[in-house]
């Protein structure tokens, strides 16, 4: 049976991990490769690297980093942040990334999804959506790292993007992100149950039970989190044992 995936997310700036990571006994926790190797040895199923610099001059740093990650870890990983063209994506995939995540650039230019999917296959194309529930109870798409509101509903955009060739959705609830009060089960569940591609739930993980709920109640295919892993509040082996006890199929 297909396992539910646990995905730590690493924010990268100038080739280094952002946020102080000090719990782990590794030589250089600021080095994304060291951290990636640590998570992979702990049983992470996949990793996501989000480059938050993403300026053109820093692109080379990212390519070099992707090369080092691919050489050192033996699980799949996604790279995202500022990817605006098929050429950008090609360079990262050629150097060993498994999937490319696109967000604002794809919203502004949906053709990007089509051309990436035609070129590399839809399994390489992850559409990241930052969404916020407004007072009208609807979930809207936000762009540019959550700074710009649009009038488009997240579900409508996801549906359209899947039609264009997106192979997976990384859904971040801005209402939940950073709260540690749990994932947004309503929108995650709508996505998981109505869309034909896997859905990664992101934003709000605070406890192991939150992961159990997003899998068993909201039917998410994967759960993504950053700080609860980086600060050692949740350890992946313990999380997986916890989920197995609740009959949630995970890889041990």
């Amino acid at each position, binding site marked *: *049976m*297909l*396992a539910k*995936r646990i995905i730590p997310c690493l924010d990268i700036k100038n080739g280094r991990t952002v946020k102080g990571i000090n719990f782990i006994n590794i030589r250089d926790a600021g080095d994304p490769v060291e951290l990636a190797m640590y998570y*992979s040895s702990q049983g992470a*199923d996949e990793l996501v690297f989000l480059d938050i610099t993403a300026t053109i001059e820093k692109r080379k740093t990212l390519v070099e980093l992707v090369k080092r990650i*691919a*050489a050192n870890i*033996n*699980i*799949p990983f996604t790279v995202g942040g500022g990817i605006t063209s098929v050429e950008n994506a090609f360079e990262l*995939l*050629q*150097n*060993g990334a*498994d999937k490319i995540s696109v967000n604002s650039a794809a919203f502004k230019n949906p053709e990007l999804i089509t051309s990436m999917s035609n070129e590399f*296959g*839809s*399994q390489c194309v992850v559409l990241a959506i930052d969404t916020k529930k407004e007072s009208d109870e609807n979930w809207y798409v936000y762009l540019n790292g959550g700074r710009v509101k649009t009038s488009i509903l997240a579900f409508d955009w996801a549906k359209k993007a899947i039609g264009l060739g997106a*192979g*997976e959705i990384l859904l971040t609830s801005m209402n939940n992100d950073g709260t540690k009060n749990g994932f947004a089960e309503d929108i995650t569940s709508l996505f*998981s*149950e*109505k869309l*034909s*591609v*896997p859905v990664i739930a992101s934003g709000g993980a605070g406890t192991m039970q939150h992961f159990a709920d997003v899998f068993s109640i909201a*039917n998410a*295919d*994967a759960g993504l989190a950053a700080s609860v892993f980086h600060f050692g509040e949740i350890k992946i082996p313990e999380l997986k044992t916890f989920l197995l006890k609740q009959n949630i199929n995970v*890889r041990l």
Partner: protein
Amino acid sequence: MNLAIIKYNAGNVQSVLYALQRLGVNAKVTDNHKEIAAADKVIFPGVGHASSAMEYLHKTGLDELIVSLQQPVLGICLGLQLLCNFSEEGNTKCLGIFDVEVKKFDESLRDKNAVPVKIPHMGWNNIYNLSSSLMQGIKENSFMYFVHSYYAQLSPQTIATTDYIIPFSAAIHKDNFYGVQFHTEKSAATGEKILSNFINII
């Protein structure tokens, strides 16, 4: 160890190269017929579309070369599918080493919670009913990493089975030809063990 990875238009091989490097093997990525024929072992990788891959193999004569190989050959992902008879992807006649059809997962199906099945089959799934030296030392129900929308049907040549919607061939073996649907190079320590079985045992 002289290991050749077949270079053609399907997919990137960087991850396979890195995985081999971690096992201490420097493979050569090549489309040179002589080099491939002379290699001790051959890896036939692939991520892409069956019909454009077959077209390319035909145009370059690699199709005839591959079926004539006598040394151990390992097809990975699309590589496995191309070693079969026929693929529903673009209704493509493939290399025919395995008398097996490659079919598309049925998207109309629902799981037990009435949720539509997700295509591609993407993520970690377990393999069982393991046999052949390729699977030596691999525990039943080990998890491997899969990404695919088409699958090889079960056959007498199946050496590992996986269930997604239906049971299908996760790995196959006939004579000197082996195929794995999962990505050994992305399947953590278990994947590396299978690659190392191919390199060291077979």
